[in-house]
């Protein structure tokens, strides 16, 4: 289906989490007859089970709908849904680059939030026309007039005629659709020019191979076109092109400039098709690639081990399968004395880590032990060599280290003014460097801090929420590396070092972290027949110690008569408990202990 460019609208929806992005997307589909309500399972665009559960979008999705506008014309809407979390900022930016405009959904009760701002700025960076939409006006706490004012004051875009809608009830959705037609520009581009298409996502299909989601900027692609990815150099012949139905791929003859769709070219590896790369024609290449491409690198690393060491091959296969669909997931085999064979895995952020972990457990039925997540430290050795350290166990001997650097992020935190003090205190505790504070309005402030990534990957977000009673929002991006006093904190259980529990920590926090770690482990490790010292040490010097007392009594002095089954069940439970333990020397450590480091910063 070829179409008149002037009748195409390529847009995305941007919003702070929970402001109703996916619900609005659903309403648009419903309203344009793409799906009947009965067919819709909750929110169709978030079609990964996990996405639906968490109410967030992890992978980009796209869908084409036809809208018959009030002017009597039929328009093609390509709605590109973007991931909704700071971990996936790069993916967001590539999805935005595929659009010509954006609907900005703002919750009529919550108003502008940190991610709202971050997303709007991102959209403006890509020259997108931003169309504000006030959602959830059916809420009793809705204050649409104020929020409209806020959008104008804080973001600086015209919002007086923003549709006031309830995506949930479907109220005023028509108005949104009309504004898409009116306010979002039609795409440009010459269908006869050399092919230039932006990859904004890719997925793997076991029949078709890699399916590339792209926006055609210039030129035309059709079945048979020899294509080349300009960054990776991979090339192949297109076997299918098409557009996005709701939840399905609909083949068509060609995609030309201004259109959004997919192409399949029998490519076997998703790594060859990187988000942000430019697709062109081998025989008639475009002169230069689209700007903005970068290879995304994992920011957070941790060890993933199968709870049952016999499941190592299963874990490997599962990671392989996940990586096919998620090029930003990185893994390599590693061995731990404590945990056996496993993988060091890299993630875009903690959410990404959690998602992968949950998918491994749920979709692949694996029981995992996760080690403390860490960032990439730069270790400058005395011999001039620089190591990028992702596993604390690989830290060179202190005598070989000249100095170390850790990654910092620029963080923007939006918070109600009454909690500014609490949040500033939190940032200070996490070694934050104050940059600025602006009052967006009387009751709300935008705090800017530079923070070590290391300090925010654990539970910064949770602490932020709890200290602001949920009224703070966070956005951050990597700023660069800063020289820092860092040490490796080791944990010794019964005098044996447990490699999987080691982590890198800011020198001044070592004592505190070590102490809390020992306390936590004391609770997690069951008593044995002997006393077990738990020690935290830095460079061989013990800085904290706890003891798990020896077990003196474990006896069931009760008579069950002939009812043996109860006694048996009790013993079996005891034995079963042992199975979930890891043997370190003569000490059995529950799997949960390895995860306990993640929850040190209770508040």
């Amino acid at each position: 289906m070829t179409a008149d460019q002037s009748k195409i609208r390529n847009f995305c929806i941007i919003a702070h989490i929970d402001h109703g992005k996916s619900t609005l997307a659903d309403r648009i589909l419903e309203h344009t007859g793409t799906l009947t309500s009965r067919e819709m399972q909750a929110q169709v665009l978030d079609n990964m089970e996990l996405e639906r559960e968490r109410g967030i979008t992890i992978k980009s999705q796209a869908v084409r709908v036809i809208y018959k506008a009030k002017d009597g014309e039929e328009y093609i809407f390509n709605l590109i849904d973007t991931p909704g979390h700071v971990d996936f900022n790069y993916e967001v930016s590539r999805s935005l680059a595929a659009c010509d405009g954006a609907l900005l959904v703002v919750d009529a009760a919550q108003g502008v939030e940190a991610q709202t701002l971050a997303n709007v700025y991102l959209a403006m960076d890509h020259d997108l026309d931003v169309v504000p939409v006030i959602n959830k006006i059916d809420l009793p706490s809705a204050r649409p007039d104020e929020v409209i004012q806020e959008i104008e004051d804080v973001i600086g875009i015209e919002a007086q005629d923003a549709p006031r809608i309830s995506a949930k009830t479907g109220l005023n959705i028509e108005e949104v659709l009309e504004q898409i037609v009116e306010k979002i520009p039609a795409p440009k581009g010459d269908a006869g020019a050399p092919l230039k298409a932006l990859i904004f996502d890719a997925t793997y299909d076991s029949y078709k191979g890699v399916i590339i989601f792209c926006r055609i900027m210039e030129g035309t692609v059709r079945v048979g076109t020899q294509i080349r990815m300009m960054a990776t150099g991979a090339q192949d012949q297109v076997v299918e092109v098409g557009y996005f139905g709701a939840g399905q791929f609909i083949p068509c003859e060609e995609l030309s400039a201004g259109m959004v769709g997919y192409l399949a070219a029998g490519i076997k590896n998703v790594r060859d098709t990187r988000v942000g790369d430019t697709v062109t024609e081998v025989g008639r290449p475009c002169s230069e690639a689209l700007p903005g491409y970068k290879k995304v690198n994992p920011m957070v690393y941790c060890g993933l081990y199968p709870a049952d060491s016999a499941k190592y091959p299963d874990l490997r296969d599962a990671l392989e399968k996940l990586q096919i669909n998620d090029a930003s997931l990185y893994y390599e085999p590693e061995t731990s004395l404590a945990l056996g064979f496993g993988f060091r895995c890299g993630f875009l952020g903690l959410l990404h880590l959690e998602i992968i972990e949950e998918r491994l457990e749920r979709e692949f039925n694996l029981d995992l032990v996760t080690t403390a997540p860490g960032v990439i430290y730069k270790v400058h050795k005395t011999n001039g060599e620089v190591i990028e350290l992702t596993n604390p166990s690989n830290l060179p001997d202190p005598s070989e280290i000249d100095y170390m650097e850790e990654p910092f992020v620029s963080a923007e935190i939006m918070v109600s003014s009454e909690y500014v003090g609490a949040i500033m205190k939190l940032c200070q505790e996490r070694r934050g460097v104050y940059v600025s504070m602006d009052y967006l309005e009387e009751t709300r402030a935008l705090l800017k801090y530079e923070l070590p990534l290391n300090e925010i990957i654990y539970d910064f977000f949770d602490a932020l929420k709890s200290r602001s009673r949920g009224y703070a929002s966070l956005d951050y991006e990597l700023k660069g590396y800063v020289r820092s006093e860092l040490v490796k904190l080791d944990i010794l259980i019964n005098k044996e070092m447990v490699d999987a529990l080691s982590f890198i920590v800011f020198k001044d926090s070592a004592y505190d972290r070590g102490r809390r770690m020992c306390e936590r482990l004391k609770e997690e490790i069951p008593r044995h027949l002997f006393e077990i010292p738990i020690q935290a040490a830095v460079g061989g010097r013990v800085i904290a110690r706890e003891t798990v007392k020896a077990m003196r009594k474990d006896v069931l002095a009760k008579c069950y008569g002939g009812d043996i089954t109860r006694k048996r069940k009790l013993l079996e439970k005891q034995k079963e408990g042992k199975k979930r333990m890891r043997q370190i020397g003569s000490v059995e450590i529950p799997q949960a202990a390895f995860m306990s480091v993640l929850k040190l910063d209770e508040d």
Partner: protein
Amino acid sequence: MKKKLELYIHTPFCVKKCAYCDFLSFPADEQTQEEYVNALLSEIAWYGRQMSGYELATVYIGGGTPTWLRTELMLAVLDAVGNSFLVQRDAEVSMECNPGTVTGAKLQSYRSAGVNRLSIGLQSTEDAELKLLGRMHTYEQFIKTYEMARNAGFGNISVDLISGLPHQTLEVFSGSLQRVVRLRPEHVSVYALMIEKGTPFYDEYKFDAVRQQGGLPTEALPSEDDAYRMYKMAQYMLEEAGYRQYEISNFAKKGYECRHNIGYWTRADYLGLGLGAASLIDNVRYTNTRDLYRYISGADAIKSVPLSAFQKEGQNGEEAVHPASAASQQGIATNLHDEAEPVARKAQMEEFMFLGLRMNDGVARADFERCFGMQIEAVYRRVMDELKAQGLLAAAEGRIALTDRGMDLSNYAMSKFLL
């Protein structure tokens, strides 16, 4: 030569349920008790006929509170046992007894009906503790019951105590022990309080129980250390007074060990009759229904099965088969049994070990070889070596037993014998 059998009879009724108790017991009116006993009589008669190849070495009437039943009802039960089964001349016939539910005459009639061992549930000599436990009696009532039992001619009396009660101190517990020892019963059982799900104590003390188990400071229950000291104290004081510990919770004057319970721990064949009772016959485990009304109707139905249905097998020269399996083949007694499950060889070995090791004398190598046709080491060498190295297990004179420390840590040690 008849095969030996241990018989257990369950009477599930209590005046009132104690706050810590999770055994199958509950209050019931006279009529229900009567209906139950009638059902029980059918079951006794029925099994008595089927188990003609066995003779009873022990009988144990437990509960609940068996002594709460009207005398005639209990006598009917005892008569039925005597009439239906062959009872060895020197059989041990025990009955559980709660203070305050008996009179001299009641006790005398039990004695005349053949009961020769009385197990009295005292639990504590402190009235405040008895009240906390929800017991219906005082210490004084216990003393009266005890004296009446002696006067009725009971020469084999056991007294139960519970250690580790909420707010109990070492001194208070030692007071209970001393008072019991002074009475010179032939047998003393000391059970540690378990906080069981579904009891009022669970609601009250579940968190404390977890703290206790974890060695953390407790609120009401004694600390783990004190609970341990109480156990040690019982061992010490009872040994000093001439009792020998022969099992984790049981102490007896020489020759007065409870033979019925030893039957369980040595995996002898036992038949359990009454609500929820469990049997082990030829390595098949049967468990009666725990539903009172199903039990009563099931026992009624069993009466109508003709004896001839089971006699064929006996005529073929085979050992008598447990009637329950025969009955369920007929689709009759299924109502009575919740389960009939053959114990697999692996499970038999496990039970042999974890039950046998409850006793201070442990298990005999020869018995293991006789049961399983192989040496213990062939199955458990690794476990035994490990436990020996930890000082929890010792082997001597053809027997293998837990050490004192092994007894203290018996759950840990026994769980190692699960294959």
